[in-house]
Structure formats: C-alpha cells, structure tokens
C-alpha cells in the first residue's frame, strides 16, 4: 500500500529533518502553525521559529530582513494570504531585491474543502509567476515534496511553493528513473497520442485517467510539472512534437497558471492544440474536499473529457 500523506505533512517533516544540516534555515508562521505543519519545527527548534501573528505583510518583510543577515527564512501561511494578501510585500521586499526567502503557501486550491471560497486560492501560480525571477513550485506528493524542500534549501533566491491540505497518494517514489530537479518536469508515464501535463494533486488524477484511456486504446503521456516557473520548455516542446496535442491539468484557475504558460509557450514555437483542465474562472465553495474537487470537474473524468477534446482538435 502506497503512502498517503498531504504535501503539507511531508513539508512539515522535511523542515525538521533538514534543520541540523541547514543551520541557516529559520521558519516564520502567521498563527497557522498547526495547519501549515510548522508546529513540529517550532517544538524542535524554538529558537529558529518565529510566530509573527496574524500579520502576513509584516512576516514577509521580517523574512527579508533576516535574509539580508544570512538566514534562509521559510515563511508559512495559507496560499491565499501568501500569494494574495502579501503579494506586494513578496514582490517588493523579497523578489525585487532577490533575497533568499522561500514563501510557502499551504492550503492551495479547492481541496481546502469546508472553509470555502475565501480560503481556496486558485490564483497563486498566476500572482507569483508574474513576479520577475520568481521560482514557483507545486509538488504532487510527499516524496516529491521532501525532495523539493531540500532543493529549495540549496537554491539561492526567492521562491514560492504551494502545499496541499488533502492527503494524497505517493506515486513518484515508485517511478523508475525519477529524479527531482528544479525547473525540470518528469515523465511519469510514456504515451504517444496525447500528453497530460499536470501539477500537484492532478498528477495522480492524470495517471488514473491515462490508465483508463489505455483501455480505450488511447496512449497518454503523463508529465509531472512540479515547477510551474520556469516552465520546462524542453519537455513541453518534445511532448508537443511527439504526441501532437496537450492537456494541461491543475487545481488553479485556467487563467494564468500552468495551462496558460504551456499554451503561450507553444503558440510561439510550435503551435499545438492545448486544452486547459482546471478551475474555469469561478470561485470555489464549501464541502468535503473530494466533493468540491468533483463539483468543479477536478477529477480523472474531467481530464478524460479534455483529452477527448484535444484529440478532436489534433485531427
């Protein structure tokens, strides 16, 4: 039985596990340490943990100041507040001066569930990607998240990473030849008729969809795009050339996320049908996370529908 853990859970374990190896790592939270999973770090390393209270704008600035003094701050709050409320602090106090701060946005996407639309951030890839020089990550499972955290600790510069609330099946640990590298997507399943480029929890959905499609004689390639920005253009171009059409899949507005980036890139170098699977420019609502995802078509069935559309466009 594969491990099932939320990426926020794996993140919380990873920062504790890596704290000794990276003494400059300091962790800031905005009164959500139980939810963002930084509580274990706060207990293990209280002198390196700062609870900044419900004041995200100030938290970003304090992290910037710590970074100018050689610390490697990881700021933690919900994606909504990191990439939304504190957008301009991230832009002007962290990204413009290129300070070594990692902005972590937990509870990204609709899978927040019961808390509803005010807390379901479907815009974070867009706001963070539009900042010049910003690295934007969205690992899909616990295994990938642990690798991403260490990669971020070895990356000098500003970055944003989304974490998910919902427990998801770990899939990347059993993929042969899997290797994590910032900015490089991973081919999780090969295929020749269509490519599904997914990120975060839709990666697992894409694998399920590909399995179902194979029963219908459709060979779908599945790419795990853990890095939204910079886009792995080499991998995307190869997929476009070899499979002739692409479906992007993300728990994000179809505007300004992975789908927009893939479509924009391909239109410039190799016009190819791209169909975007994601949240179709609407706000979410309350409900159990799986039910909310289902209600907005964020499901293997939703991906299959887009694959059929892409295949029609290809002809």
């Amino acid at each position, binding site marked *: 039985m594969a491990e099932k853990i939320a990426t926020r859970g794996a993140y919380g374990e990873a920062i504790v596990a890596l704290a000794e190896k990276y003494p400059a790592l*300091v962790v800031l939270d905005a009164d959500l340490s139980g939810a963002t999973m930084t509580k274990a770090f706060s207990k293990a390393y209280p*002198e*390196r943990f*700062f609870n*900044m*209270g419900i*004041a995200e*704008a*100030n*938290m*970003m*600035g*304090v*992290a*910037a*100041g*710590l*970074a*100018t*003094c*050689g*610390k490697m*701050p990881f700021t933690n709050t919900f994606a909504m507040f990191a990439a939304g409320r504190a957008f*301009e*602090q991230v832009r*002007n*106090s962290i990204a*413009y*001066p*290129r300070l070594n701060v990692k902005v972590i946005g937990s509870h990204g996407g609709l899978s927040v569930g019961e808390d509803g639309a005010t807390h379901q951030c479907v815009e974070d890839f867009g706001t963070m990607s539009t900042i010049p020089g910003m690295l934007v990550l969205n690992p899909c499972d616990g295994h990938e998240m642990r690798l991403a955290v260490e990669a971020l600790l070895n990356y000098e510069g500003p970055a944003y990473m989304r974490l998910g609330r919902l427990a998801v099946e770990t899939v990347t640990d059993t993929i042969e030849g899997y290797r994590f590298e910032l900015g490089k997507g991973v081919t999780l399943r090969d295929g020749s008729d269509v490519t599904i480029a997914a990120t975060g929890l839709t990666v697992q959905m894409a694998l399920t969809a590909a399995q179902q499609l194979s029963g219908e004689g459709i060979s779908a390639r599945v790419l795990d795009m853990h890095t939204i920005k910079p886009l792995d253009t080499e991998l995307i171009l190869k997929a476009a050339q070899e499979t002739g059409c692409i479906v992007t899949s993300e728990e994000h507005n179809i505007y300004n996320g992975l789908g927009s980036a893939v479509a924009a890139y391909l239109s410039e170098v190799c016009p190819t049908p791209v169909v975007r699977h994601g949240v179709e420019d609407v706000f979410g609502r309350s409900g159990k996370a799986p039910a909310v995802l289902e209600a907005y078509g964020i499901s293997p069935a939703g991906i299959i529908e887009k694959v059929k559309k892409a295949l029609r466009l290809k002809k």
Partner: protein
Amino acid sequence: MDKKQLAITATKARLLALDMVHTAASGHIGGSLSALDALTVLYFNKMRVDPSNPRSLGRDRFVLSKGHCSPALYATLALRGFFPVEACKLFRSIEGHMSGHAEMHHVPGVDMSTGSLGQGISVAVGMALAGKVDAKDYRVYTLLGDGECQEGQVWEAAMAAAKYKLDNLCAIIDHNGLQIDGSNDEVMPIMPLDKKFEAFNWNVLTVNGHDYEALDAVYDRAASFNNGRPTVIIMETIKGKGVSYMENDPGWHGKAPNDEQYALAVAELEAYLKELEG
C-alpha cells in the same frame, strides 16, 4: 564631528540632493531636506559602518523605509565615502542604476531596497531579530515618514518588534506634518504618535530634527535603553528645510525645481555654507 562640521556636511548634502533632483528633473526633495540633518548625524557620528567594506557583517544597519527620500540617503552615503559624489549625476537615469527609490544591489552602502511605504520597518525588524538570534551587537535604524505611519504594516511591525524585545532597533519618524495631498491632519490624522508607540510597548523619544546636538544626544539615549523595548524617535522637522521657498510647502514633496528655482536654492545654501565656513 562637532556641531559646525555637521552643519557644513548637511548643507553639502542638501546641495547634492538638490543637484540630483534638478539634474534628473524628478525626485522627492521636500522629505529629503527634512531628513538630512538626522541622516548626517547618524552616518557621521553614530553608525559603525566602513565605506570600504559596505557589507561587513558586524556593521550597523539602516533601512530607508521612506524610500522615496533616496536623494538624502545617496547624498549622505556619497559624502561618507561609499561612492564618488559624481555617481549621483546618474540619479534616476537610464544610463545608471541609481534608482529613484533606494536600491541595495547597485548603490554601495544601501542596506535594503525600499520604496513601497510601510515595508522598510518590517525589514528592519528582521535585521534586528537576526542580530538578537546571533547575539551580535549591531544596531538597526530605520527612517519612516509621518504619512507612512498610515500604512497598517507599520503597526504590524511595531507589534513584532516589541514581542521580540528588539532594543537594538531604533525607528526615526520624520514628522514634518505634510504628505503629497496636504497635511497629515487633512489626509488622515496620525497623532498622537507618541501615545500610539507607547501603547505598542516602545520607548518614545522626541527631538528637534534640525538641532545637531539634540540629535547626537537622542541617538545615544536610544542606544542606552536596556529594557527590552525598541525605541522610536519622533523627530519634529520642516519639510523642505534649508531652502526657504520650499519650507512647509507640500507642493515640494515630489517636484523638481526648474533652472531658476534651482539657482535660487543653490544661492541660499551656498551663502549659508560660506557663513558656516567663514
């Protein structure tokens, strides 16, 4: 430096700031002139900085939270020897990297890039926090505008500084009473600032921001507190100080003088300089 030397240096800095804004035909002169006496005393008499090693780890740090007053900071740093005075000719020019708001990567001696109001004080809190965590003895200074205190983030930072007992932090408020659209009172009243900061558990000091001896003493007083509280110095100043037709006129917040106005300002400051050096 003694009082006279400080006055001479501040006057030269005023001339340089005016030259920058006039050459660029843009920039924020009013608030630069109001802050220049405080900056001169700070950089020439108080801060432990080494112009030949601007990033030394043990240095005192300064964050210009009112980042638009970069002419004052750049002029002070140039006169302090961080870079040649001639470099200021490229202020706000595409030919150089001396950005309109304070810029840390291209201007030696600038400790943080600022410009968006309310953000610098948070960064100063982070620097002071790092000093406490690492048991370093450097001090962190940050200069805010009075209008800037309308930003909510200032008060988030004030809470955090008190929580972490940052008595190595000193915020200076340039209280000239004016902002772009008019007086603080017309736009959005901020008083009483002293009671606000007291309520946020800070030490509060007040000073005449154009009295060199008082400034010299107030920085020492701020550094002498050993009570686990950050200190704010509320500095009474005159916007446009030193150029009589600019003084107390919010119209000079972000406007450059034309050639005639510039000549008038230079004549006034040079006459004062001559008198001081006389």
